[in-house]
């Protein structure tokens, strides 16, 4: 039995057994359902092997939504635990595991993939391209992210979850203090997903720089595309740092190296530095695209072109550069001198300037606009004041001397949720509602959407505003319980109530998807929002080749100009189109990566070696394979086009 013992969860509880059963039953139900409806072939041909950026994007978003619920359940558990003083719902160890997985899942497996999903769907369309530069690589990226996420999630039921916080500071995350395999899961699953992200970064930089429609100079790109371009540059330079940090962590834990140990010359501060050299840019990886999404939505629904295009671009470039030189504000209190703290304090505060520029640009865009209050627009409008509050409290934290007082209190937790939730979650929800008709050919219900919007906005503020107060009062973060005499009880209860409101809001989104899929009208135009950029210039649903004829562009809003000023977007005539073939290799290779990761987590070397060989075998297969894609003939294109036109 010894061999199997290590797969057992170290601190089992009824919740864990219940989830084991739930996971088991769901898997059986899914497999049985697919078999019953004979959908294996369809699933394999149309989804698992697809290289179409639109489908990959949809899969990203589905996975991200799933993870939103996983992370959300963690959040509810935490808030339930702290809702009343001296609560015994979770013990200390479980609380540690829950806030760790919550943080990791939310940032790496929810926010970022959601953004990447939207960028997959929209960016090629916005630049008038037929696909991304490397479609096959794109599939690899997705499947690696997916397998990384799954590997991370099974830690809950096999072997134990990581418990050292999403920052995994050493020596806490070392073998001495984190004895279970939990932190191995952390290191290895993030590594697998991170490789996928890096490849996405490369892919989209090439796509945007080299595959734009004729006439679309850099300064004529839609703002969302700009934000994606900059984000991908951050990815390419930040993710290798994570790769190294995680590799060193893995070696410390599995092979007994001495990078982050307290003896033999190791340095725990090295971990903190490496982690945040990646970690701080990471928060901009999830925030900048949100800025892009809001820019698109605000100009669409204010019926006005974006105010200050150039300053928008410049401020994003400034933010991205600054994001690399502020990382030490995450550990002011860990013993740098005043000089170092001072420098990082100033660079951190400097970020407020370009961010302020953007806020004013959005306000000026709204100023003289004719505002239409759709669901995406509501999120964008709510974002502005809430995010500003998050930003202002961020500047408060940026002052090193003040930070000594309230770092690691609930004030910080309130701050970063006030930035991340309006900055990213509202944005992806807005973007998802906005681009939904392009993805699926019908609109989400505005009415249910507004209900969920209000639950989310109010729930959000009720959840997080009290944390500013308890934080200033001294309630520490990551503390699983507190005594009645502290007086934190009532506000924490309020916060729990807010969290339930948030949960209802998110549940309503799912209900909206269900309701609209069944009842919403399929008879919508290609451009249901009266929007401004190229993705709306093609049919709904989008044919696999995106555009029958490559569009020509001559302003930042070529599609708007084509509608209002009669500018001719599609000049050329239809020619045969080259498309890549589907491939099962990305999926299979990523499955092997999963096995590889699992084997490493449990130090099962023989399996790990076999899996490594398998991964290389896939790459060699790819190298020798002769696959130059296929052509869609002119007749086929015309037939598709006529059918799509007829549908309207």
């Amino acid at each position, binding site marked *: 039995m010894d061999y199997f013992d290590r797969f057992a969860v170290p601190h089992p509880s009824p919740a864990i057994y219940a989830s084991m059963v739930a996971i088991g039953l769901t898997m059986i139900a899914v497999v049985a359902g697919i078999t019953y409806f004979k959908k294996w072939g369809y699933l394999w041909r149309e989804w698992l092997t697809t290289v179409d950026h639109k489908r990959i994007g949809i899969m990203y978003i589905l996975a991200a939504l799933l993870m939103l619920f996983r992370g959300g359940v963690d959040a509810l558990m935490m808030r339930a635990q702290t809702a009343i003083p001296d609560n015994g719902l979770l013990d200390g160890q479980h609380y540690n595991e829950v806030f760790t997985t919550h943080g990791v899942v939310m940032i790496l497996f929810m926010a970022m993939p959601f953004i990447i999903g939207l960028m997959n769907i929209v960016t090629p369309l916005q630049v008038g391209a037929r696909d991304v530069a490397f479609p096959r690589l794109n599939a690899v990226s997705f499947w690696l992210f997916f397998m990384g996420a799954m590997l991370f999630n099974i830690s809950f039921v096999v072997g134990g979850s990581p418990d050292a916080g999403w920052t995994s500071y050493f020596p806490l995350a070392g073998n001495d203090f984190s004895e279970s395999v939990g932190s191995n899961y952390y290191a290895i699953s993030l590594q697998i997903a991170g490789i996928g992200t890096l490849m996405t970064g490369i892919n989209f930089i090439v796509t945007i*720089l080299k595959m734009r429609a004729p006439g679309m100079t850099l300064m004529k790109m839609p703002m969302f595309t700009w934000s994606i371009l900059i984000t991908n540059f951050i990815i390419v*330079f930040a993710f*290798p740092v994570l790769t190294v940090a995680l590799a060193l962590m893995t070696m410390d834990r599995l*092979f007994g190296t001495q990078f982050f140990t307290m003896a*033999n010359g190791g*340095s725990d501060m090295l971990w903190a530095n490496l982690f945040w050299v990646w970690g701080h840019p990471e928060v901009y990886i999830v925030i900048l695209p949100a800025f892009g999404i809001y820019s698109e939505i605000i100009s669409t629904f204010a019926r006005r072109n974006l105010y200050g295009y150039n300053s928008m671009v410049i401020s994003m470039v400034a933010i991205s550069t600054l994001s690399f030189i502020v990382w030490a504000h995450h550990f002011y209190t860990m013993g740098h001198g005043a000089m170092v703290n001072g420098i990082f304090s100033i660079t951190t505060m400097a970020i407020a300037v370009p961010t302020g520029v953007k806020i004013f640009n959005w306000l000026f865009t709204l100023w003289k606009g004719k505002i239409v209050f759709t669901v995406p627009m509501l999120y964008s409008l709510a974002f502005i004041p809430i995010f500003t509050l998050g930003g202002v409290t961020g500047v408060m934290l940026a002052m090193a001397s003040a930070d000594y007082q309230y770092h690691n209190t609930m004030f910080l937790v309130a701050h970063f949720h006030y930035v991340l939730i309006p900055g990213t979650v509202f944005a992806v929800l807005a973007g998802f509602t906005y681009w939904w008709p392009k993805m699926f050919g019908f609109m989400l219900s505005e009415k249910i959407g507004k209900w969920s919007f209000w639950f989310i906005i109010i729930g959000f503020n009720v959840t997080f505003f009290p944390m500013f107060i308890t934080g200033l009062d001294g309630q520490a973060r990551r503390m699983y319980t507190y005594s009645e005499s502290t007086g934190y009880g009532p506000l924490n209860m309020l916060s729990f109530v807010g969290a339930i409101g948030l949960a209802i809001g998110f549940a309503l989104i799912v209900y909206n998807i269900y309701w609209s899929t069944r009842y919403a009208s399929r008879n919508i135009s290609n451009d249901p929002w009266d929007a401004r950029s190229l993705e709306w210039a093609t049919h709904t649903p989008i044919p696999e080749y995106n555009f029958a004829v490559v569009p020509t562009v001559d302003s930042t809003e070529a599609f708007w100009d084509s509608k209002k000023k009669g500018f001719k977007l599609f000049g050329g005539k239809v020619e045969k189109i080259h498309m890549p073939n589907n491939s099962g290799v990305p999926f299979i290779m990523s499955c092997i990566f999963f096995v590889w990761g699992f084997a490493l987590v449990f130090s099962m070397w023989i399996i790990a070696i076999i899996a490594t060989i398998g991964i290389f075998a896939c790459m060699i297969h790819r190298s020798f394979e002769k696959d130059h894609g296929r052509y869609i003939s002119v007749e086929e294109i015309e037939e598709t086009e006529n059918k799509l036109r007829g549908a309207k």
Partner: protein
Amino acid sequence: MKIDNSLPLEYSTEENRLKIFGFWIFLGAEIALFATLFATYFVLVDGTGNGPTGEHLFKVPTLMFQTIFLLTSSFTIGLGINAMRLGRQKATIGFFIITLILGLGFLGVEIYEFVEYVHEGATIQTSAFLSSLFTLLGTHGAHVTLGLFWGTFIILQIKKRGMTPQTTNKAFIFSLYWHFLDVVWIFIFSFVYLKGMM
């Protein structure tokens, strides 16, 4: 595939140009990766604990052999690409084989060196300095190893399929990779070995 005959074969199709550009960006990421490893090394270089220091370990002869092998191989792969541009398949393959043999030589010396270190009681677990040293050198060495396999497969493909836009594209990208490894080695040579021996 549209082939543009005014360009060298490796650049001649749209797909090829995208691949080369993408690879340059990948090299940007590789620079970030090695920069992080170097930074780690510099932070930990004095963390020798009870283990030996660099001054104690580093030897001139192995270093010289490694450097000569790798620098020469960068030169021969350049000749290989030149032959490729001239359309001379045999010469291309020849130069690639020489390149790989030199790479193999480099790797052999590196492995010999590692074994020596371990004999002297300097293992990757001994101290933070040695952990970072082995990791930095090992990552570079692993890249060379990967390159040996990669290069072999490219030679096989050129042999089988001749000099097509695809094979020349692969060969060219491989040469970029190989030059990059050489550049990294120059940094290792100067900032790890020379600095460590002084």
